[in-house]
């Protein structure tokens, strides 16, 4: 590939963007730089808003981006996108800091030092293109020695990548740090659905959430936050609805737990046991749907071992509390049971979620408003609409292949965006095994922990510079496809990964070229848009494909609110009643504390640690910024002689697999035998803001996996704390300003009178 072709691609990629409908300002309001006498004297310049899709996390909310003089200024939620209806989250707001990041890979880079150190020289487009094509051609004789690693992909980029690897014969692995496989497996088993369902929190009267931090990071947090507002204080037909009740079951109080009406601390890994115990009460007391109960638990007495008094010691929840939970859950309809995050991150993760999701059948909450509603497929049959990441189990097998060269060695490793060197537990040994790969090419926009091992970096555009699409999974209960368009010209010398693959396919020729008939991602998108246009239904109806394309870009996508899943929901499944206690790494005597890593409200799984706005965003529980802390129960802290406040002890958190340092945060958010640490920090290489900062709790995790899906069981490790005698000032927002009064100013209303 020649430079001219690269430039043509880069230049063409932003042409043809379409303004967000209804947001233009006439030329008469041209920018005047006010001398700033009063803030209100300022005159506004000419701005334009473009609709696109947020890609900061896998939820895929619609966004509108304010652009002035060719620069993106502000990202807000797209008011017409069904997921978020104009709302956004802190992570989405920070998108402009990714686009204009000072440490973006500015152009192709070639390694200038040992792998892993992230030392690079700028390379020319000619050399980068020649190298890429030469490597791809050389390996064509043994195509299965080429491995492409991406984030889980669906939509058009997913289709392009699948066809490319299929026709070339390469192997495709996908990586996500927070694996959704247990949720998907449990949804498949309980509801027989391939797509994640729509949990209708807005219309539920009672939500029983097992570990799912849905107000912070779980699945589709902005949608869930929006629904949560309605759940608490929504109106229906001009009348206040009764306030919904949220009960959070989890060992560590998450930010969702902090908003709950009640927190039920459960022993780590016993979430499914507790759900079965609740089921036992509902079934034996005849509180729920008897037919569903009969189908789910056909063997008489199958639930007897889960009687609340029999499992109280294993779950840590007193029997009378379980009975009360069961009665409330059965009485307050529609009631919704959801589960994820730490409940899924155990060796019995899928079993836990199966028991939790099954509760919905017992109280008639499947396929109804306020319960679990299903998501129909998008009417584009060829388009992959959901993606499951390669399991941790298969990743371990892959690392073994790298290490031994069996069954055959890897000659060329291509990595797009995914960062497995950061996310996989150190014990797996990916970084070391990469030494056996002759050549590694990264297509990441930033030199992250994995790109640091590359021999060549050909940087991808950020999402604000790219064409694309996103089918939200979970969707809102009907088909949605968000269209992503470049809102600005590329800021650095990057190239859209999909376009690069298409171009490479053309150059390779033969069957690869035949499998990929499009010249660009935009062209592939337009082909699908034309298909949608022919349906003549949904949010955009136009007479010609071109008019449809423009209208869909203006609105940020296409959806059809009428196309909900028809008919009765599938019958309740039989639910396994063989208890499978979670197992843990680390001897209980030597390592007395359960380690609960948790996704960070700001940094997510670590992929956003390079954005200073999010580094500086105070955590909802600890209010700590820029650092890694370990949440320690006050009693445990007292026993170990630790303090954690404005100045805190630094401790070594030690597991059988490693040790990291963290500052102590003394907090009633964890039981005495549990410590919790946020994910997100501890990058060895990831821009000036994240490199060498804090610690990654996943380096402490061993290699246990969910028995069914092989997903990493990241909550299955025990640790101990060792005081190392250092005390530091903590970058904590609590105390940034003095409290405005001695006690909390936040006033509380008691129970509402009926």
């Amino acid at each position, binding site marked *: 590939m020649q430079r001219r072709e690269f430039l043509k691609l880069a230049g063409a990629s932003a042409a043809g963007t379409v303004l967000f409908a209804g947001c233009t300002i*006439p030329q008469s*309001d041209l*920018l005047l*730089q*006010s001398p700033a006498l009063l*803030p*209100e004297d*300022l005159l*506004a*310049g000419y701005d334009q808003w473009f609709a696109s899709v947020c890609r900061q996390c896998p939820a895929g909310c619609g966004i509108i981006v304010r652009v*002035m003089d060719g*620069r*993106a*200024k*502000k*990202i807000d939620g797209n008011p017409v996108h069904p997921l978020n209806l104009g709302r*956004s989250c*802190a992570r989405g*707001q920070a998108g402009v800091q990714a686009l*204009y990041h000072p440490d973006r890979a500015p152009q192709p880079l070639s390694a200038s030092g040992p792998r892993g150190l992230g030392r690079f020289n700028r390379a020319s487009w000619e050399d980068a293109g020649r190298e890429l094509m030469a490597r791809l051609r050389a390996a064509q004789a043994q195509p299965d020695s080429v491995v492409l690693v991406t984030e889980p992909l669906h939509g058009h980029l997913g289709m392009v990548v699948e066809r490319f690897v299929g026709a070339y014969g390469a192997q495709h692995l996908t990586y996500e740090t927070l694996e959704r496989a247990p949720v998907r497996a449990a949804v498949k088993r309980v509801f027989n659905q391939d797509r994640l369902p729509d949990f209708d929190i807005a219309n539920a009267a009672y939500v029983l959430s097992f570990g799912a931090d849905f107000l*912070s990071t779980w699945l589709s*947090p*902005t949608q869930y*936050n929006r629904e*949560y*507002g*309605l759940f*608490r*204080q929504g109106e229906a037909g001009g009348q206040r609805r009764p306030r919904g*009740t949220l009960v959070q079951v989890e060992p560590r*109080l998450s*930010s969702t737990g*902090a908003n709950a*009406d009640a*927190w039920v601390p459960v022993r780590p890994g016993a979430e499914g046991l507790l759900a079965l115990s609740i089921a036992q009460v509902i079934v034996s007391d005849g509180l729920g749907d008897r037919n569903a109960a009969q189908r789910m638990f056909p063997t008489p007495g199958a639930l007897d071992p889960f009687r609340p008094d029999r499992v109280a010691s294993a779950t840590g929840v007193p029997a009378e509390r379980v009975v009360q939970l069961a009665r409330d859950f059965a009485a307050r309809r529609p009631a919704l049971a959801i589960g994820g995050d730490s409940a899924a991150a155990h060796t019995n993760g899928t079993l836990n979620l199966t028991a939790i999701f099954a509760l919905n059948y017992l109280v008639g909450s499947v396929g109804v408003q306020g319960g679990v509603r299903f998501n129909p497929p998008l009417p584009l049959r060829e388009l992959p609409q959901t993606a499951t990441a390669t399991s941790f189990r298969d990743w371990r097998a892959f690392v073994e292949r790298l290490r031994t060269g069996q069954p055959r060695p890897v000659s060329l490793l291509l990595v797009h965006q995914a960062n497995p060197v950061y996310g996989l537990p150190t014990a797996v040994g990916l970084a070391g095994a990469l030494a056996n790969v002759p050549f590694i090419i990264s297509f990441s926009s930033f030199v992250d922990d994995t790109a640091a091992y590359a021999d060549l970096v050909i940087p991808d555009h950020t999402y604000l510079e790219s064409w694309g699409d996103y089918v939200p999974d979970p969707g809102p209960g009907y088909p949605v496809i968000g269209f992503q368009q470049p809102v600005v010209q590329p800021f650095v010398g990057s190239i859209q990964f999909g376009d690069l693959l298409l171009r490479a396919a053309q150059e390779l020729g033969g069957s690869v070229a035949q499998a990929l008939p499009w010249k660009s991602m935009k062209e592939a998108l337009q082909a699908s848009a034309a298909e949608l246009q022919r349906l003549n239904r949904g949010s955009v109806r136009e007479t010609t494909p071109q008019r449809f394309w423009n209208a869909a870009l203006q609105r940020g996508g296409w959806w059809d609110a009428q196309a909900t899943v028809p008919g009765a929901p599938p019958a309740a499944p039989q639910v396994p009643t063989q208890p499978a206690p979670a197992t843990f790494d680390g001897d209980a005597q030597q390592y007395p504390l359960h380690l609960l890593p948790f996704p960070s409200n700001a940094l997510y799984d670590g992929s956003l640690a390079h954005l*200073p*706005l999010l580094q*500086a965003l*105070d955590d*909802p*529980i600890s209010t700590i*910024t*820029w*650092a890694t802390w370990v949440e320690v129960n006050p009693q445990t802290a007292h026993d170990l002689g630790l303090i954690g406040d404005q100045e805190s002890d630094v401790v070594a958190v030690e597991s059988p697999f490693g040790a990291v340092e963290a500052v102590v945060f003394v907090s*009633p958010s964890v039981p005495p035998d549990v410590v919790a640490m946020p994910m997100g920090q501890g990058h060895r290489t990831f821009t000036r803001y994240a490199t060498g900062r804090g610690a990654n709790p996943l380096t402490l995790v061993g290699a246990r996996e969910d028995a069914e899906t092989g997903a990493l069981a990241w909550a299955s490790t025990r640790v101990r704390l060792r005081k190392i005698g250092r005390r530091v*000032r*903590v*970058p904590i*927002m*609590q*105390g940034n*300003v003095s409290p*405005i*009064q001695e006690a*909390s*100013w936040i*006033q*509380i*209303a*008691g129970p509402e009178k009926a």
Partner: protein
Amino acid sequence: MPKWGMLVDLDRCSGCRACVAACQIENNVPINTEEIVNQRRGIQWIRIERYWEGTEYPAAKVRNGAMLCQHCRNAPCEPVCPVYATYHNSEGLNTQIYNRCIGTRYCANNDPYNVRFFNYWEPQWPESYYHYLNPDVTVRSKGVMEKCTFCVQRIRRTERQAKREGRALKDGDVQPACVQACPTDALVFGDISDTGSRVSRLAQDKRHFRVLESLGTDPVVFYLKKVDPQHVGDAAKQPAAH
């Protein structure tokens, strides 16, 4: 002439901090580096205060509340400024005139809500980040107080647009950045002189209160109480730290 005001429904607020991030991008708030946070000189025009009610596991409860300038109609910060850098405008906004401010910090001293912030340092962004700064909002320099403006630039922009379209402002037209972002719809903004506006109607809810009402500051930020079915009255509440 509208009189702007805001409402915070604490029962909707989930403490997600979308408002905090949206405000910082919209208003060119300097990056709160680790060094600055360690000095306890971080700037957040709107912040989420996190209180613990009780200290014992597992009974302790988290209480979140958004705190921002209350734009008091009787603002203690206004009369103490020796150079009239802070004043109350005709639409009820408590406004800071940056190029008048000489940094005495009397206003912050007199501010009971701790929502005024002093620029101890020249604000700094890496050069490439200047591309996203909002051209409608002045970057404040070292030695100057700054604070929430109710996004006056958005108010002006919306007013101008309405004028151009030859119509009056509608309720909900003006949304400060925090309100627009807020995913739970906990923040509501509007004209409190219009009894039919959403903010006026919600402020009549039986859960309404204002913060530090006893000081007589007469804020125009109204709050609705957090609901807790287990709440047993204020007597049981223990002192909490933010």
